[in-house]
């Protein structure tokens, strides 16, 4: 479809993203990689040791596994739609090109 250099550029950008994600794992080797919000909670309790959360989540995923299931579903649903959309228009563009020939 598009020229090779176009796809190559996109591929390079994607590779760069992978690098940015992987490098911290090596830089901060012994880190816990917990959520940034967990640290925020610590700071809140430092700033105001009397503060108690006054509301609890209505429902919490009962375990880390269930939580990752829901996160995976969220990502899969979004990615599925994105794949469908882009695939649909790639196909349409191809049909148009063939018709013009």
């Amino acid at each position, binding site marked *: 479809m598009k020229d090779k250099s176009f796809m190559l550029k996109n591929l390079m950008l994607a590779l760069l993203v992978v690098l*940015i994600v992987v490098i911290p794992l090596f830089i901060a080797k012994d880190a816990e990689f917990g959520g940034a919000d967990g640290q925020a909670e610590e700071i809140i309790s430092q700033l105001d040791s009397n503060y108690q959360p006054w509301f609890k989540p209505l429902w919490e995923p009962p375990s880390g596994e269930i939580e990752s299931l829901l996160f995976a579903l969220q990502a899969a649903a979004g990615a599925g739609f994105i794949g469908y*959309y882009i695939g649909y228009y790639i196909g349409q563009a191809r049909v148009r090109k063939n018709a013009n020939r």
Partner: protein
Amino acid sequence: MLKNVLIFFVMIMLLPRPAFAMHIMEGFLPLKWCIAWYLLALPFIIVGLFSIQKLIKTKPRLKMLLGFAGAFAFVLSALKLPSVTGSCSHPTGVGLGAILFGPWVMSVVGTIVLLFQALLLAHGGITTLGANAFSMAVVGPLISYCVYRVAKRLGGPQWLAVFLAAALGDLLTYVTTSLQLALAFPANPGGFVISFVKFMGIFAVTQLPLAVSEGLLTVITLNLLSSYNEDMLTELSVVLKEVSYER
């Protein structure tokens, strides 16, 4: 025995557990701030609802593209990525939609994503939804949209405008989160500024590499959209003729 086990489990269920999320956690913002941020976010969401309605009425073909922008935000905010600080956070994904549809539409889309995460993932919260919507669904898209427009007007290349818009929108979302927490929890002594610096140290620094990732992912996605779906983008007056890496 069975009774003890039961009691044990009930205890565990009732213990307040930290809900890991990058948004402000449920119950972690005093009531008056919850209300204030709800009130501040609401007008944007209402305007957003009207502009979505108008968009669907005048350009029904773009419904799918709107869904696409929502899906993009859905995926990106599900990806908790490691950062150089040794903790994790996630991108927001609202920059793409803000570039395509403007900031108002994304305030609705972003709030829907936040609502999903608050209800099903205990990520963020219902009481803090106003505050989180203000940072991720109002400030983020607004910054993205403005940065994109300014960069284009200054004659910057397309990819750079997109990259800066998405990355800065992402970053400023978390700067806003820090600001909200600092306002609610001023340090004593030191006040707001000290707290702000502390929260920035967590949220904003962690977010820096993620903002770059989000910028790059948004560039890739807009590249794909503009090469296969040009007429729709033209209809949106994003006018991406050809993705030009060089001017």
